[in-house]
């Protein structure tokens, strides 16, 4: 669902990230949340108590609902962190786990 503005995407560098082990292509400068959304992945984590799916909500770093496990660190705000080559992104289950970056 990336907007196909040629003026936006033609010159931006492509970045490959790994989401739960699967490669996903993104544009440099995109946030992780946007890259995942663009790839059709809107469930970013599951909550601790009721194990409900959550996704991007406020989009500006206020609500802390888009927490993901990124490069081995849980609780990273996917709406604030930008993609980097070979970034290891994982759906966070509850409080997440530490230090499992590949």
């Amino acid at each position, binding site marked *: 669902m990336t*907007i196909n503005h040629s003026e936006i995407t033609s010159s931006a560098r492509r970045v490959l990230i790994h989401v739960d082990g699967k490669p996903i292509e993104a544009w440099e400068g*995109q946030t992780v949340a*946007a890259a995942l959304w663009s790839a059709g992945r809107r469930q970013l984590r599951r909550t601790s108590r009721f194990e409900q799916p959550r996704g991007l909500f406020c989009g*500006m770093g206020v609500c802390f609902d888009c927490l993901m496990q990124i490069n081995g660190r849980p609780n990273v705000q996917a709406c604030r962190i930008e993609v980097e080559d070979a970034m290891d992104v994982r759906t966070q289950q509850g409080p997440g786990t530490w230090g499992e970056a590949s």
Partner: protein
Amino acid sequence: MMRRDAVIIGAGPAGMSAAIAMAEAGLKPTVIDENAQTGGQIYRQRPSTRNHRAAPSHNGVVADRGADLRRRFDAVSDRIELLCNRQVWGIFESNRLAVTAPHRWQMIEAEHLLLAPGAYEYVPPFPGWTLPGVLTPGAAQIMTKTQAVLPGQRVLVAGTGPFLLVVAAALHEAGVNVLGVVEAVSRAELLRCGWRLFADLGLLREGGGYLRKLRRAGIPIYDGRIIVGASGDGEVSHVKFAACDRSWRPKKNRSQVIEVDTLCVGYGFVPRTELAQLAGCQLRWSNELGGWIPLIDAGQQTTVRGVWAAGDGAGVAGALVAQEEGTLAGLAMARQLGAIDDDCFEARRRPVVRRLARLRRFRAALDSLSRIRVGLDELCTDETIVCRCEELTQTEIDKGIDAGNNDLRSLKVATRLGMGPCQGRMCAPAMARHLAWRTGQAMDQSTPLQVRPPIVPLTLGDLAEPVSMDLPVQEQMLRETIA
């Protein structure tokens, strides 16, 4: 520790205007902003450093205004110390700021401090609001405008206020199938109190412009209707909305369900008062201006000497008002610092005050339309999650209230409401209203949750690092912003 005459937190319309006023008065204000570029949320630019060319201007009037403000800012930027990608994580003894830098932090002491942090969207809880695919109009706008990602294919925009029209129009232009705009205020009410004032300021043209755009596109406006629930398996797939009365109480027998993949929902904005609270400023409640706001005098000074507030963070009134308030605060600080004398201050201030008075008349009408009404508090069922972080249900909160916890602080301690990572930003505004309604208290008798540093995410390792004293004065970011 670094010492500065004047520090402005927030480079949105208010902060930028204050900086311009001060720089023009010959001062060198320091501006701190968490984003890579100036403009705040409203005049947000597409990142310029990432090979993206300028964004197509989806919303002409707003973009033009932003460009104009930026031009004026850039013209005096050699007299502004701009610190981008920095966040203030704490304020100690009202004027010492703890400011983040990558993997460290430092203290800046400000003789005068202007708080211009802006606002965030108000979304009270309703069944299904935690489903992925339900997001704020602002999030949808950021996604479309700066991330080049469409928030969805079949999108419903809902809530209240003119921002919904802006977002709906932007989404439509970006190629989204906008299914409609659900506006809680009825057309009849809008016509009764709104249009004359819109016309008064020429803003009718702006608002009307969006409306015409939507009408041409065949996007229906469902006015006098309110979202009562969202549902879906893992993501939102259906949204139910119903006709509502003037208190926004839904009429259950007049509802309809539509199939969507995305729901953008927001009921106006909540002023960000964390900084004001950390600085020790006294707050007051204003339902019209978005909730708790710092108490300020005619010159935008808070109850703490040397601490000033302007823009939506001092009461939600939109970018135009924010710019004038920022200018006022900038002039007042310049006078206090001796950069301009009383005559010059008065001369520069007068036209600003005049414009502000006119704008505020208009806003007063708009605010009375957009004010949050009691029906919104009655959407939750017993099982609805009201605290997204701690996953607390309406029932659990009500039990806490009924056990005697009749203020927010006690309710927090008793139930964990607001103890999650968002620290109550999402739940507290709605739960404060709920608490008041349930206990029969007046909102102006209530107190907000206390704010605890750090107010931005910071790691223990970052905080453990000794305070670093140096900070590059001219940021690379500044150059890039101007370029």
